[in-house]
């Protein structure tokens, strides 16, 4: 299983095509993201861009840790990292990502390997969608 490469998922030609945007659907709830905009702060979009950048860097290393934990059957580590990733995902509106992190935390102490791998695959797909959605939102804000 390869480590997630963030750069792969950045949009190459500016904002997403409306069709792609539709495909991404609910990867990131932008309403949630917009609640973090501070009307009292003149640099409101800068904070969200900064949060997106922090999330992408941090979540990428957490995804790698989750992959390693599933491969090595390190369930305590898996639960701790998934818990951590759940919090920041939910805060930035990546709701389905947060749900999948919660599902990983709910695994038994020795879950069937297929179950954990299935959840991991779903999380990897969702993470790609989230990265694309964040890349588009970031571009929109810095444009």
């Amino acid at each position, binding site marked *: 299983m390869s480590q997630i490469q963030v750069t792969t998922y950045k949009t190459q030609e500016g904002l997403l095509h409306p069709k792609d945007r539709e495909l991404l659907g609910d990867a990131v709830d932008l309403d949630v993201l917009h609640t973090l905009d*501070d009307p009292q702060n003149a640099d409101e979009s800068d*904070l969200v861009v900064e*949060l997106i950048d922090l999330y992408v860097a941090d979540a990428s290393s957490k995804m790698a840790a989750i992959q390693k934990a599933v491969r090595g059957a390190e369930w305590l580590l898996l639960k701790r990292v998934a818990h*951590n990733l759940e*919090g920041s995902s939910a805060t930035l509106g990546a709701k389905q990502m947060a749900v999948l992190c919660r599902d990983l935390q709910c695994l038994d102490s020795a879950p069937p390997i297929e179950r954990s791998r299935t959840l991991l695959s779903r999380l990897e797909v969702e993470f790609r969608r989230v990265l694309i959605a964040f890349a588009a939102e970031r571009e929109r804000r810095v444009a």
Partner: protein
Amino acid sequence: MLSPATISSRRVLIADDDPVMRRLVSSIVEGEGFTAVAVADGREAFKILQSDSDFRAGIFDMMMPHLQGLDIIRHMRTEKRLMRVPVILITAESDFSLMSNSFTAGATAFLQKPFTTEQLRNVLRILPDRKS
């Protein structure tokens, strides 16, 4: 060491191992006119609190490496100089018993992730004054 009885501090100690949450909380705290002192885990927060009690409040993540939010609160409530510093606990858990344990341990407020800027701002505005 600064005396808690004579100071109305504008500093807020923030401990969260998640960089996104740390940055977000710091930004909201600073937007309310406080100075954010942000650290990446409970052990760092504990170290600071050993020699510095000049804080208007503490905002701690419940689950952190080395030392968890609840452990810091329990320590603070046994130290006279830290006893009255209000503490907000933040967690992704929605477990009511966890909330109850937090208040029993001495938490002042409990905020569940995800929260909005407005929610944390409101909690900061109603924090009790440590001198009262």
